[in-house]
Each structure stands twice: as structure tokens, then as C-alpha cells.
């Protein structure tokens, strides 16, 4: 569905994927005429959509000849893959992040327009424990919106350590209404992490936290409300996963989307200071100057605690032991994937 954000001064809209119409199998054949070093090593790639995630994981872990690469392996399944005699676990620090959006709408009754409250929540949660225990070590705590390996992370960026006492001081100064619970919404898939954050916040700030797990069937409706910015939102904080298409210019695909005047996930009024900095960056064609300005944007978001900065989860793949798969931070491509002579497809040939 198309979520229309604005029509003036320019039309801005985002497509929300509410369902996928996949063919049971999508077969890619090597282009033997490709003329660069990236010519395919594999003769054929078959994307299979006729299995459940569990069936696919079983097939790659327990047998050979049915499944060679399973993406999006849950950290909860990582140990099983590592124990498998047929598969290996490939992990990469990917350009992905999980953060919390703050509801900063003018008509919202929680004091999240106050930077002290946003910083309090950032100091209340233990993102290091979340990465280590919630995601089994397959994640990196975030300082701000830019993973440490990307260009544009501001110099000196360090993920905040939990400081419950300072968090309580800041929350008291911001003035959260006594007895009002904090409503923390999350896609159902991230409910475990949301409950870790909720427990930290309750412990540090003495607030009751209501976790609202949104089932996949309702995510499209919630996303459209968020993107179109016309109907009220039913949450104070929303856990939100996102990604980046490259490691070079995170503000373009990440920061702007969360905080920019045309950002799909902006959950508050337009931020003139952010927009001024981003507009300057968007006009800059010198790569070194652009990088400096990207760092400036990243630092601004950190200092203003514009989001609940949590973790950058790894991308995990279960890969057949005879497949040499090279993971990418920002994509899933197979041009340089190879199979050894012991692979089932070559033995059968």
C-alpha cells in the first residue's frame, strides 16, 4: 500500500509491503557473457519459497542436496547451525539497526519532546546486555544511528552504558506524570528485546511499562499511521528495525528517514535544525566534506537523543559446508559464491 506523507512542496510517499506474491521457485541462470571479474561462479541459483523457515533450516542443517543457504537465521537458532555436521554459520556485521522511535507528536501526552526524558530512557536500557544476551552476542550496541563500521559515525561515538541513577534524575526533571505507564510497542518478532528494555526502564525509572506486541497482520496498518502522520499513534516508544543500502552515507537512508521533514518514520514535528544540517549535506558533492557533514548529523542525533539507540544485529546465514558464500554488509548477492567439487550439485553432475 502507498502511504502518502505530503504533496507540498513536493510529493512524498512510501510503499509499505503488506504481503508478498512470490513464485514457489525463482531460478537464476549464469550470464556467461558478463565481462567483469564479477561474472557468476555458479551455473544456477534457485530461490525456494515453497518451504517454511523451519523446514528450510532443517534441510540445511540435517541433510545435503535440498538447501544450501538459509538467510535470516535467528540468533536463537545459531547454536544449532554451529552444531550441524552439514552447515556452517556465517555471520556479518550488517548495516541493520534496531532503535526505538519516540512519539514526539505535539498532541501526545508523554514528555518525549523533552531531550532529558529521551536521554533518561537511553541511559535506562542496557543495550550491551541486549546484544550479549538478547541476541546471543550477534549484535553490536549502538551509540547513535550509525554502526561503527560505516562512514559518517561521529568521532568518539560510544554506545551509552546503563546509568540507572542518572536516568532517574533526568526523568524526574522532565516530569513524567506519576502513574502513567509507558507504552512500548514492538513488532512481535522483537518482543523479547522489548521486554528486556521494559524491565530496564521499570527498574531504573520506576515506571510501569506496557509492552504492546503488534502481530504481523497489524503491522501494515500501524506503519501507514506512522508514515502518513495524520492519525494519533498509540504508543510512546516503538521498536523499529531498519537497514542501509551502503556504508557510505547513512544520513541519506537512515537519519533522514527517521528525523527528516520527508522521513517516513519521523514521529514528531519537523526538526528545523536537523533539516538544515541534512540539506547542507545533500548539496555537498565533495566526498570528504560530505563525510564530515554526515558525522555532524550523526552527532546531532546522538546529543539530542532523538531515538532510543539499541543495537545493530548481525545478518546470520546457515550455509552448506561445501558452499563458499561471501556475505555482504548491505546486500545479499551471490555473484562470488562458489561450490566445491564435493557439493551435491557437482557430484550428481
Amino acid at each position, binding site marked *: 500500500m502507498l502511504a502518502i506523507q505530503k504533496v507540498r512542496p513536493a510529493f512524498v510517499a512510501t*510503499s509499505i509491503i503488506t504481503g508478498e506474491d512470490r513464485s514457489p521457485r525463482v531460478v537464476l541462470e549464469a550470464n556467461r557473457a558478463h565481462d567483469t571479474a564479477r561474472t557468476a561462479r555458479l551455473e544456477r541459483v534457485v530461490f525456494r519459497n515453497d518451504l517454511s523457515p523451519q523446514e528450510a533450516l532443517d534441510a540445511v542443517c540435517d541433510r545435503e542436496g535440498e538447501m544450501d543457504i538459509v538467510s535470516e537465521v535467528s540468533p536463537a537458532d545459531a547454536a544449532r547451525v554451529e552444531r550441524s555436521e552439514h552447515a556452517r554459520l556465517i555471520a556479518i556485521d550488517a548495516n541493520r539497526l534496531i532503535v526505538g522511535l519516540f512519539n514526539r507528536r505535539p498532541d501526545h501526552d508523554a514528555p518525549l519532546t523533552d531531550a532529558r526524558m529521551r536521554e533518561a530512557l537511553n541511559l535506562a536500557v542496557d543495550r550491551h546486555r541486549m546484544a550479549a544476551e538478547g541476541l546471543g552476542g550477534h549484535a553490536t550496541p549502538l551509540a547513535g544511528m550509525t554502526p561503527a563500521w560505516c562512514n559518517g559515525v561521529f568521532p568518539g561515538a560510544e554506545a551509552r552504558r546503563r546509568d540507572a541513577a542518572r536516568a532517574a534524575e533526568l526523568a524526574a526533571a522532565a516530569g513524567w506524570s506519576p502513574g502513567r505507564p509507558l507504552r512500548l510497542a514492538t513488532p512481535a518478532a522483537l518482543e523479547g528485546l522489548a521486554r528486556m528494555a521494559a524491565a530496564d526502564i521499570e527498574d531504573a525509572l520506576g515506571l510501569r511499562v506496557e509492552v504492546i506486541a503488534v502481530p504481523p497482520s497489524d503491522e501494515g496498518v500501524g506503519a501507514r499511521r506512522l508514515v502518513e502522520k495524520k492519525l494519533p499513534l498509540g504508543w510512546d516508544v516503538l521498536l523499529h528495525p531498519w537497514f542501509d543500502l551502503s556504508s557510505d552515507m547513512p544520513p541519506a537512508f537512515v537519519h533522514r528517514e527517521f528525523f527528516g521533514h520527508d522521513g517516513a518514520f519521523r514521529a514528531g514535528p519537523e526538526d528545523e535544525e536537523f533539516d538544515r544540517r541534512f540539506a547542507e549535506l545533500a548539496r555537498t558533492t565533495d566526498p570528504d566534506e560530505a563525510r564530515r557533514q554526515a558525522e555532524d548529523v550523526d552527532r546531532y542525533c546522538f546529543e539530542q537523543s532523538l531515538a532510543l539507540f539499541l543495537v545493530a544485529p548481525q545478518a546470520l546465514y546457515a550455509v552448506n559446508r561445501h558452499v563458499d558464500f561471501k*556475505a555482504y*554488509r548491505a546486500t*545479499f548477492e551471490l555473484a562470488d559464491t562458489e561450490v566445491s567439487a564435493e557439493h551435491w550439485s557437482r557430484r550428481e553432475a
Partner: protein
Amino acid sequence: MSSVATERAMPEAGPPVPVGTVHVFDPNPLNWLFVTWNTMEEPVRTDHEGHTVLALAEAAEWRADGGFAVTVRRGARFQDGEPCTAHSIKQNFDEVQKWAAPHPPGTYLNFHPDATCTVEDEQTCVFRFPEPDGLIMAKFRGFHIAGSSFWHTHGFGYKKTGSGEGHW
């Protein structure tokens, strides 16, 4: 000045011979994009670290007059053998510009509505924008280049939905 590395040339030993089949299960909701990136080229792509490198372009640089010149990799061809030239870039640019919101992730990837693309020669085309676009290389990552037969048959959503909105 080009700001990114160039695509590696084919090794002197010649191209590797593709062998083997792999079966893949990819539940990522961006699978449509990954299949596109595995089957089409863009002026740029990203390397393993996520950094931008030239792909279908062998050069991309700002000129003193404010134009952004793209030089298409010499000898590039589509899967059906059609040469990929500066005319191909312009054809795909013109298709993109028809739509208000062609990219599922949002209009940020759009080129400015008043941007133009002019073919200088078989390998070179020049983009012109109302104001400098410092994010152009990032946008090029989502600028999929298809052969003319693609536009005459499927298009991005043309055959299935009658529109390119939300389908790039």
C-alpha cells in the same frame, strides 16, 4: 573527480566457468531487491564492506559546469546481447522520471523531478540538476538498468499492475 573505486577487470586467465547449483531460502522482505541486484546492474554497487564501487559505470564525476557525467563500462551487454550504452542509461532514467513514487523505500531515491539526462556519445551521458545532488551516488545504487526488451515486455510492474509506482 571520481569518488569511488572502479570495477575490477577480468583476470588475464579468462572468466571462470560457472559450475554448480545452490538452493537458497531467503525470507527477508527485501528479497525482491536482492533478486534484482543479482540479475541487473546499476551504475554503482556496494562491495562486501558496503562501500560504493563503480559497476555499470566506469567513471562518474562532477564537471565544472555542474553536470554529472557517467561513462558506461565499455563492452557491457544485457543478457539478451543488446549493448548497454549511454542511450540505455537515458532510457531507464526517462522511465524512472515518469513516476511519483517508484521506489518502495520512498521518494528519497528519486532524482529531482526537473533533472535531465543527455547522451553525449555512446558511452557518456550527463545528468543535470537544478541544484547539486550530493547524494547522487547513493541514489544510483537503486537505479536499476534494464535492456530495452524489458521495457517492451514487463517493465517494473507495467505488465502486472499497469504502473511503475512502488515497483522499481
